[in-house]
């Protein structure tokens, strides 16, 4: 909530809570009333969000639940204080908060997109490396062959032993 009074329109975001006494339809009607209040002072609503009923982190005036709604609008800075005051006196709204929101320029969006692509490629490369390492380790260690080798050797030994034992001139 900036106190500077600029003439140029700024982009704002308002989040407000409506009490639990309303039904869902009634709460939507009240959000429309709030919208009208903003439009009345030459505000321009650009985005609407209705979150619905949510549990509050703590009780506000005895309400454990509340309806959340979010609006984004362009407004001249002079009228911000007026809207703030009006909403404070508007008994249907439990609590509200207006925040300045900077709209992103195209340059910023392009930059972010670049960074996102970079991160994605990095992650993909990491995953590939891990898979290669796994494949390598699988190739080098082939435990089944070794076991077979041991078994064959044992069999050979047994055969030899049998031969020796069966020889009749061993005891004599």
């Amino acid at each position, binding site marked *: 909530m900036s106190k500077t009074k600029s003439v140029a329109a700024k982009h704002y975001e308002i*989040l407000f*809570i409506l009490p639990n006494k309303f039904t869902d339809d009634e709460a939507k009607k009240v959000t429309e009333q709030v919208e009208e209040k903003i439009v009345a002072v030459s505000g321009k609503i650009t985005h609407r969000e209705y979150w619905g009923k949510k549990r509050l*982190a*703590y009780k506000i005036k005895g309400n454990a639940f509340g309806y959340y709604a*979010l609006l984004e609008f362009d407004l001249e800075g002079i009228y911000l204080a007026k809207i703030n005051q009006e909403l404070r006196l508007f008994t249907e709204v439990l*609590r509200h*908060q207006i*925040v300045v929101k900077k709209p992103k320029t195209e340059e910023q969006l392009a930059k972010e997109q670049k960074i*996102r692509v970079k*991160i994605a490629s990095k992650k993909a490369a990491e995953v590939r490396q891990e898979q290669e390492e796994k494949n390598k380790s699988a190739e080098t260690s082939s435990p089944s062959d070794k076991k077979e080798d041991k078994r064959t050797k044992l069999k050979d030994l047994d055969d030899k032993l049998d031969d020796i034992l069966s020889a009749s001139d061993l005891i004599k």
Partner: protein
Amino acid sequence: MKTKQVKKCYFCANNLEVDYKDTRTLRKFVNFFMKILPGSRTGVCAWHQRKLSEAIKRSRVMALLAATHK
């Protein structure tokens, strides 16, 4: 030889913005008593820590985050 420094800051590394409505991520930077954790402990850079503390306070006002534990 210089060892390569790993970027620890959650918001820098994941290219995220701090948002007071996103309680699930804000909850990571608050302890059991709902106190804001220092950047030295969470690894958040100073620039984002300033945004973070502001965001946590804003979400407390709107009852999205609790100010204390029950």
